[in-house]
């Protein structure tokens, strides 16, 4: 399979073309087509994971093709341990979210068209090895997301779509400047990430710092890092359920992935200088996100803010600059994708029944929706970092990593973790416990809804009990990163 990665990237686009051919009346056929193509992507990604050489630290399945030689831009893709986890996550959530797309009834064809384009953008971002190509895929995500939120979203969808678009755009144009800046800074001029990993660390400290901050700003908006996070609650809340899943599960990871792919290997000196900043922001994210989430009355908004909180761990892991921190950080990305994705699915389940997301409308659901109660409790526990479930491993590794460097931050974060615990427990109490309100005659989750959640639950358990199942893929890549520092 010489062009496996290219196939993975453009398979969804092919799906989009196929969907474009189908008349918009044949809704079922469109759905099936989208599902088939996303399933094929998942299968291909799984194949990559199976064929992946876990002992190799470098890029694998590389493809390289000169594109614009005048400015040495190459179409270059490859996968290593860090991107593999995220690509798999993307493919999995992409498939599951596609499967869970049952509530979309208007303009189905257009929905799946943009959805497929979105998939290509996300997969490409994680696989690109050339900064320009990376940027192109990165930006490709914006417009489909703008549509997905703006057309199929909730009541304030337009506001949310605008805000999402412009906020993240503001971040990415800064990244564009930084990309151009790094191109001219290194000798020989190149956009190739593999070469940059060798040449960029040689830059002067000041230059590294400036470029690092520019890149970091771009990623910070996407992650999102306090104080650039306010697009997130709006976008997550207004987006339809499957899109929220993708947003939280994959889009946020683009930012953190960028940290690992760009900020860490290119600017080790700047990373040393600004590690405290990352650490502090991580801790702030963690606590601020949890506290802000706690005060929400909207179920989905609460989950959205809790994402901010979880992303704090990823930042902490990066700030740690050691193997535990990086491993924890990457694992946390993966876990957060799974857990929060599932959380949004669960919010969607009650939203479809209640048509509201206010906590005050719920209560006592455990009595009338036992299956729902199980899944929600399970995922809430995973979110709050219960050992034995996947969330804990990432968080613990991140904390263990940061403790070596900034013990005070680690302690503050550990204490802040209590807020996360309170947050999710109180959520469970508000939604599931208590007396069921009168006149609620909601049905429990149907087979489809359960089927989507089960793989996520299994992954949560497996990673929680045997984290090496994921870690073994990334270990070599992380070791290489750490060694380069």
């Amino acid at each position, binding site marked *: 399979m010489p062009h496996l990665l290219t196939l993975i990237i453009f398979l969804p686009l092919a799906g989009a073309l196929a969907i474009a051919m189908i008349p918009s009346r044949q809704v079922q056929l469109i759905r099936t087509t989208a599902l088939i193509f996303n399933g094929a992507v998942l299968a291909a990604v799984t194949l990559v994971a199976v064929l992946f050489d876990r002992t190799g630290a470098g890029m694998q399945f590389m493809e390289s093709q000169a594109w*614009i030689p005048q400015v040495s831009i190459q179409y270059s893709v490859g996968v290593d341990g860090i991107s593999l986890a995220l690509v798999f996550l993307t493919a999995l959530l992409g498939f599951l979210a596609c499967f869970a797309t049952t509530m979309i009834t208007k303009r189905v064809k257009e929905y799946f068209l943009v959805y497929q384009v979105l998939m290509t953008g996300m997969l490409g971002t994680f696989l690109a090895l050339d900064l320009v190509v990376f940027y*192109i895929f990165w930006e490709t995500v914006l417009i489909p997301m703008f549509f997905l939120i*703006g057309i199929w979203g909730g009541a304030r969808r337009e506001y949310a779509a*605008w805000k999402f678009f*412009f906020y993240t755009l503001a971040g990415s144009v800064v990244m564009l400047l930084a990309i*151009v*800046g790094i191109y001219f800074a290194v000798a020989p001029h190149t956009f190739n990430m593999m070469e940059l990993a060798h040449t960029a660390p040689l830059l002067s400290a000041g230059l590294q710092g400036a470029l690092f901050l520019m890149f970091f700003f771009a990623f910070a908006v996407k992650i999102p890092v306090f104080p650039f996070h306010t697009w997130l609650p709006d976008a997550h809340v207004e987006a339809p359920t499957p899109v929220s899943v993708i947003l939280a599960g994959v889009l946020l990871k683009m930012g953190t992935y960028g940290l690992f792919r760009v900020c860490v290997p290119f600017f080790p000196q700047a990373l040393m200088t600004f590690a405290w900043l990352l650490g502090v922001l991580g801790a702030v994210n963690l606590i601020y996100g949890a506290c802000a989430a706690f005060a929400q009355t909207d179920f989905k908004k609460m989950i959205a803010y809790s994402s901010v909180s979880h992303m704090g761990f990823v930042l902490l892991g990066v700030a740690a600059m050691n193997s535990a921190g990086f491993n924890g950080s990457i694992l946390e990305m993966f876990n957060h994708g799974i857990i929060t994705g599932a959380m949004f699915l669960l919010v969607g389940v009650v939203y479809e029944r209640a048509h509201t997301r206010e906590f005050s409308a719920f209560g006592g659901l455990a009595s009338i929706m036992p299956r729902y109660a199980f899944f929600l409790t399970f995922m809430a526990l995973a979110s709050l970092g219960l050992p034995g479930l996947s969330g804990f491993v990432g968080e613990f590794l991140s904390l263990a990593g940061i403790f070596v460097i900034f013990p005070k931050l680690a302690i503050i974060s550990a204490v802040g973790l209590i807020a996360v615990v309170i947050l999710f427990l109180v959520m469970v109490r508000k939604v599931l416990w208590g007396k069921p309100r009168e006149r609620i005659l909601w049905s429990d989750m149907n087979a489809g809804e359960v089927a989507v959640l089960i793989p996520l639950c299994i992954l949560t358990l497996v990673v929680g009990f045997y984290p090496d199942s994921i870690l073994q893929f990334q270990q070599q890549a992380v070791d290489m990163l750490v060694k380069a520092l």
Partner: protein
Amino acid sequence: MISSIQFVIPELILTCGALALLMGGVFGLRRKMLGFMALFSVVMGFLALSGTPGAGNIVFSGMLTNDIFGFAMRAFVFLAAGLTLLMSMGYRWPDEEDAGEYYFFLLAATISMTLAVSAGNLLMIYLAVEALSIISYVLACYFKKDLYSTEAGLKYFLFGALSTGIMLYGISLVYGLAGTLDLAGIGARLAAGGIHAPMLALAGVMIFAGLAFKASLVPFHMWVADVYEGAPWPVAAFFSIGPKALGFALLVKVFLGFPAFVTSGWEGIAVALAIATMTLGNLAAFHQTSVKRLLAFSSVAQAGYMLAGLASGVPGVKAAFFYIVIYAFMNMGAFACAAFLSSERADLDAFKGLGRRAPAGAFIFSVFLVSLAGLPPLAGFLAKFFVILCAVDARQYVLAGAVVANSILAFFYYLKIIKAMYFEETSSVEPIKVPLCGQMVLVLCLLAVVVLGLWPQPVMNILAVVFP
């Protein structure tokens, strides 16, 4: 002399075509027929262009120059004319009146532009630009019973006459300072030195004002929106690519040919004007509700990006012209889409629900708008990317920053159109049909925008030859 005649064969073909059109109009040929005739002569002229003698000869005793830059720009002018013609043929004109004259004027404008880009003498430049201006006034005023169209024509005239007048005065000063109007001669004289610098600067500003007027650079852009809005859609589209590109070509020809101008602070001026142009253009477009005005201001902003390229040294010129080529396609595409999908002076409400009524049209329009905004993987992104690349290379960091900041601003109003088309619904569900010629121009531009976005080599190779 033979080579001189050979050199202008394309223009001669166009002239013949134009005259034939005038006659055809008099004899009452159908608009469609006239359109084909015009297109035919442009295509023939384009073919003839490839047969003109190689670069290097002096033609018409230096009034025209036969160089590769002029050659490429002539080809570009033919391209722009061809696109405009196709669009005009696809456009739903309200009546059959004055069709012959319309096409005649278009061809005449094309001729004056080809002459302008290959001019070797300031006077020739003035004459060609003045001719183009006069034709443009008439074209803008094409709906002569229409309050808006006539106002547009008059306004264009008022500004145009003043601008060319000022330019002429500047030319006359240059004549006094250099003793010649021949571009090569002026260059030699300037290189020799000893010219009264403030006077030269005064002349420079005056000539710059005249050309910036055509290129719609701030502060000489005030006319743009009013004129575009009053003029018919195809005319506005033509203005937005033909004369604008001409303005830039002449700026390059005149200013980058004068080393003295470049060294005396023009680079800083160019940077400042580029930033001002894109910013003011985008800000003015920000709240527009009239789509034509919106696109007009957008074209002002785009001029700012092109100027940003020019302000970034020699590689920047290449980037600027890459931008101009891409811009021609995407802007023409955007104007064409807007023209076909709505009416004259349509506001944003007219675009509501177009995603339903004309799915293909709305999609293509969105592609053009997104490309204008500069989102990958479309050609508009690469164009902007190269400009930024050159700006950073020339250490114009502020300029590069302004370009990216402006692209955020620009997204706002481009997306507003897209939003109207897709997010909002209307009661009307009647589908909108685009005529065949219209479809052709759309597909042509779409292909260019998409293919050049993924594979920019053809244009880059040509530019590499033009600017060695």
